[in-house]
């Protein structure tokens, strides 16, 4: 079954907030070879002007992909996850993410384009903090190969 183009405009969330922790920031920094002590030490982060340990640039993907999962599993959208390839990704940060943040995510299906047996599904996930202030916008496109 192909991806349903009528799903454009749907949105999901916000769901339960994601709590950003120092240990997760450190673990993520280790995984992406981000070497600054500001990802590991509160003191180093404060010296850089942040309130607490600061997340690496792409840390937001961790929160965004949890939100995007709601799109992938929605039977009315019809994405076959075993046929998915990640096509593109973009982060626009309104402020850096730091430990202690409680982040909520709302994901929107912005576009679905179909050509030559491939559906390109573009989602936009808006991350905001406890006060409702914007933190990051994450735009992601999945290429879904339709069954031959």
């Amino acid at each position, binding site marked *: 079954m192909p991806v349903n183009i009528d799903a454009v405009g749907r949105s999901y969330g916000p769901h339960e907030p994601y709590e950003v922790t120092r240990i*997760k920031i450190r*673990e*993520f*920094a*280790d*995984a*992406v*070879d*981000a*070497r*600054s002590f*500001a*990802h590991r030490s509160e003191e180093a*982060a404060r010296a*850089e*002007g*942040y309130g607490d340990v*600061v997340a*690496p*640039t*792409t840390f937001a*993907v*961790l929160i965004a*992909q*949890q939100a995007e999962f709601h799109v992938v599993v929605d039977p009315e959208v019809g994405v076959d*996850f*075993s*046929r998915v*390839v*990640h*096509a*593109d*990704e*973009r*982060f*626009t*940060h309104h402020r*850096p993410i730091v430990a202690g943040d409680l982040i909520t995510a709302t994901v929107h299906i912005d576009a679905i384009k179909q050509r030559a047996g491939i559906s390109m599904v573009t989602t936009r996930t808006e991350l905001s903090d406890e006060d409702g202030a914007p933190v990051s916008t994450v*735009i992601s496109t999945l290429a879904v190969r339709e069954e031959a």
Partner: protein
Amino acid sequence: MSSENGPAFAGLEVGQVVAEREVAVSRDALVRYAGASGDFNPIHYNDAFAESVGLPGVIAHGMLTMGVAASVVEEWAGPGNVWDLQTRFTRPVPVPALGDATVTFTATVGALDADARTARVNVTVEHDGAKVLGKAQAVVACA
């Protein structure tokens, strides 16, 4: 959106290489990234599964490659100063069960905005002589 802890805007020139790194990507790195990111797609650790969906074998997470590209830029820019980062995933990086795959990262100043005090940095990411990321661009807030 200038940044006090960012790199100095003055003196930057288009074409200037600001950071470089060569990374040996092993299966260990993929498992570590899977755990850290929560992306447990088996194409990133299970050869039989990867082949069953038409891949040559296990490939690196595109987001791992993008994440390291961000880290390379960040090493120059300072933490928290990459305000925008985008890329297309143009070619997979196959990672052997033993040994590793070498990926090289080169970050070059692509454009300067004196009013905003930002630098656009283009990141060239190559494996096996071919680019694996397309239009990998970061916007860095400078001091």
